[in-house]
């Protein structure tokens, strides 16, 4: 297992010095060692990438660094919030990935030395790499909304990382009286899962309509437009008439501050006091990306769209929600698609080749009700240093179709979740 190249901090210092010496006098012995790829982050991006690397080139020594023993998936977690799915259906382990030859290290990565090509772990040990993949997902910015810090999240859940927060929001909805006001605060772009707040509005409305029909749901938005907008707005009218209200940025929807003591959300245009407040704050790339020097002043990671190599940190690749992928949205499908392209590029680079220009697909389903699915899809290719939409392709589900079409897309959404989680973790 990983012990072959995990060393203590004391040895690490010595090894760094040795590495410098070795770099100064390159020795053939180096070329004969199995190339090492370390992947940080065991979500849809990182776990997919670790697996794909091993499948493309079994000679690679692949290590997946992920402190959690169980992964809790965000896609479909809005159904958990609506009380229609168990959190356990969202949870996956790493045993099968380890059985496939990937070394899984259950530690947090705390340091990256891009010059020495080492990753420091929370237990004081370190890993050496030839190529590093960062798939750290997002960090919630607890400095962006006045009053919204980690303590406030225990009162006004974000539920934007699945797990305890998901269950907290569900419990709050269950405890709410009929006739209560639920408020969702949606952030400005870019953020994880662009259609997510609006799918959540639908599925919470589904719960309210079923269990607490006198209640209302208000979306306070820091944007004037959003993903699948017309489809969601049609669904609110069709499925939850009079229940869902959306206040856009220009209508005063941007939340500037919150008061967790009174469950109040404060905008330029007034205060909204909620029985249940779901505050989705602005986000940035997971912290290790900044530690590695891979983030820019936006808080996200600029990448080469062919290899996903960081534009600021050589030999470090960034995939998934953390990277700036141009037109590709921050979705699980995107992370998985990027992971496979990145893995092929790394294997090609390590074998001395030149990675081909890729094309990538995203498909993202949302449920407006358990039997009412809508989707957005896109095809992307590198253009002007970013991933750009292939013109003429992609787009959202048609607006005027029979309910049978929506039911089919809901069914495909279920199939997608089963398939992608099997590919990544099964």
């Amino acid at each position, binding site marked *: 297992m990983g012990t072959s190249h995990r060393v203590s901090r004391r040895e690490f210092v010595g090894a760094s010095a040795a590495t410098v010496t070795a770099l100064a006098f390159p020795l053939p012995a180096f070329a004969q060692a199995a190339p090492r790829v370390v992947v940080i982050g065991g979500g849809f991006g990182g776990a997919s990438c670790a697996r794909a690397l091993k499948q493309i080139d079994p000679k690679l020594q692949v290590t997946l660094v992920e402190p959690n023993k169980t992964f809790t998936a965000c896609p479909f977690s809005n159904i958990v919030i609506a009380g229609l799915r168990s959190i356990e259906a969202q949870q996956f382990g790493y045993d099968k990935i380890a059985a496939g030859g990937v070394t899984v290290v259950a530690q947090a990565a705390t340091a990256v030395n891009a010059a020495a090509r080492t990753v420091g772990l929370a237990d004081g040990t370190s890993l050496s790499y030839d190529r590093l993949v960062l798939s750290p997902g997002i960090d919630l910015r607890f400095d962006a909304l006045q009053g919204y810090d980690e303590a406030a999240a225990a009162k006004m859940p974000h539920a934007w990382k699945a797990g305890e927060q998901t269950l907290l929001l569900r419990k709050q909805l269950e405890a709410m009286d009929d006739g209560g006001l639920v408020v969702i605060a949606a952030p400005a772009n870019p953020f994880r899962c662009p259609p997510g707040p609006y799918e959540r509005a639908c599925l919470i409305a589904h719960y309210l309509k079923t269990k607490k029909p006198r209640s209302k749901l208000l979306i306070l938005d820091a944007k004037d437009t959003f993903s699948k907008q017309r489809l969601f707005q049609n669904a609110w009218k069709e499925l939850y008439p009079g229940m869902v209200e959306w206040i856009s940025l220009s209508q005063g929807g941007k939340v500037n501050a919150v008061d967790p003591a009174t469950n109040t959300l404060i905008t330029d245009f007034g205060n909204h006091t909620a029985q249940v407040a779901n505050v989705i704050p602005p986000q940035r790339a997971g912290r290790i990306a900044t530690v590695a020097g891979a983030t820019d002043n936006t808080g996200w990671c600029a990448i080469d769209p062919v290899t996903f190599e960081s534009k600021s940190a050589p030999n470090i690749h960034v995939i998934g929600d953390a990277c700036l992928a141009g037109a590709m949205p921050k979705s699980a499908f995107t992370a998985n698609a990027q992971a496979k392209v990145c893995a092929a590029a790394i*294997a090609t680079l390590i074998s001395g080749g030149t990675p081909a220009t890729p094309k990538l*697909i995203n498909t993202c389903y949302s449920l407006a009700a358990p039997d009412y699915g809508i989707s957005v899809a896109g095809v992307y290719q590198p253009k002007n240093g970013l991933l750009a939409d292939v013109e003429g*392709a*992609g787009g959202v*589900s048609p607006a005027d179709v029979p309910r049978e079409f929506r039911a089919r897309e809901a069914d*495909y959404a279920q199939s997608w979740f089963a398939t992608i989680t099997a*590919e990544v973790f099964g």
Partner: protein
Amino acid sequence: MKALSVAVAIATVMASSPPVLAASVPPPGAASCSGCHTSGAAAASSVSRLYGRDAGEITTAMTGFRDGSFPATVMTRIAKGFTDDELRAIAAWLAAQK
């Protein structure tokens, strides 16, 4: 003797070839398919498995999705992002997967 000559032949081929990756690197676009179309055992899924399917069938379906003659929910939108050559390469790669 026969076994030895085969071994020598293999060794010769290996020595003269550039480094080869164990699995063929998928052509542009192909790696994304398995996000929805299972790459593993046929799962309880409404979406068809494409690995090992006839390349001609896949190409026919994709061109049909692209020109609208073959109705679908999402594939009509995705197929429009690929040229004939790209579709043929993707279909050939999918057909060659186990």
